[in-house]
């Protein structure tokens, strides 16, 4: 039996179908979840996809964080369910306090869309096992509110515990502190990042590279071997 990976659609999600496709390409079964579902349909992992849920009103991810599906996601993430938040999904994870710090508007106040170089800093999380620590990858980045901020204590703690999972290389696209592109929780099951691995899974589109696919093969391998 193959792994079932849920993808939540919120009102305003954009990348839910691309994420489902990436999961299918990796060999797992994507399961569509709706933001009003409280039942996670017995999935083995959950992805919160990119987009502009609730129009990013109030703060990016702030309204989605209180949707019925998130009650269950928060509870199960704390119990070890692997959860990946991409872009808007990352913003939702910080608003839900499943990941520390917060996401604010880019320091240059513009929407940004580019092919971004990243360094994989932590290849031990549920979602990064198929990378090597120190590996440099290119995946697309597109956001308005991508500036990761946290207080000095939290930043020092993240760095000391190796919980910065991805760092921007060559160019900091949004003013994120410590060039942080993605982080994980203490247990390593919850990961959030601003760039979009689901847009780099087929050579024909996007960057022409498939540097994003290991996210989805990593979790599949982790679940199958569990």
């Amino acid at each position, binding site marked *: 039996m193959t792994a079932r990976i849920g993808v939540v659609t919120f009102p305003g999600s954009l990348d839910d179908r691309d994420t489902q496709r990436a999961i299918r390409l990796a060999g797992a079964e994507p399961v569509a979840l709706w933001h009003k579902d409280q039942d996670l349909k017995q999935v083995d992992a959950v992805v919160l996809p990119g987009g502009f849920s609730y129009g990013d009103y*109030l*703060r990016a991810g702030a309204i989605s964080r209180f949707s019925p599906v998130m009650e269950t996601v928060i509870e199960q993430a704390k119990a070890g369910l692997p959860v990946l938040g991409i872009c808007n999904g990352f913003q939702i994870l910080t608003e839900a306090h499943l990941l520390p*710090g*917060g996401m604010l*508007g880019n*320091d240059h106040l513009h929407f940004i869309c580019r092919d971004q170089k990243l360094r994989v800093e932590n290849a031990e999380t549920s979602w990064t096992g198929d990378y090597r620590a120190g590996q440099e990858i290119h995946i697309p980045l597109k956001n308005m509110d991508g500036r990761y901020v946290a*207080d000095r204590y939290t930043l020092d703690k993240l760095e000391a515990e190796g919980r910065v999972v991805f760092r921007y290389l060559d160019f900091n696209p949004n003013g994120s502190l410590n060039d942080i592109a993605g982080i994980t929780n203490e247990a390593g099951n919850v990961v959030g990042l601003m760039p979009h691995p689901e847009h780099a899974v087929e050579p024909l589109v996007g960057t022409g590279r498939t540097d994003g696919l290991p996210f989805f093969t990593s979790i599949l391998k982790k679940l199958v071997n569990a």
Partner: protein
Amino acid sequence: MARVVVDVMLKPEILDPQGQAVQRALPRLGFEGISDVRQGKRFELEVDGPVDEAALARIRDLAESFLANTVIEDFTVRVDEVAEATK
């Protein structure tokens, strides 16, 4: 009915590029001597019934859990005295 105002501001140590963009435009408009601008959000809540201590406590909970993200923002809650005076 009464109005309660919740003001939300980014914490002082957090960079506010929107406020800076506004501040940089000021000399062009002939406003001198303003060295810093920070931009926040104001929520006006029309409350049914009396705004007693219990109602304010509920609004503070609302502000803390939803209207502000206290990881990055501070907030204040107050009764709108002008709205009170005109009723």
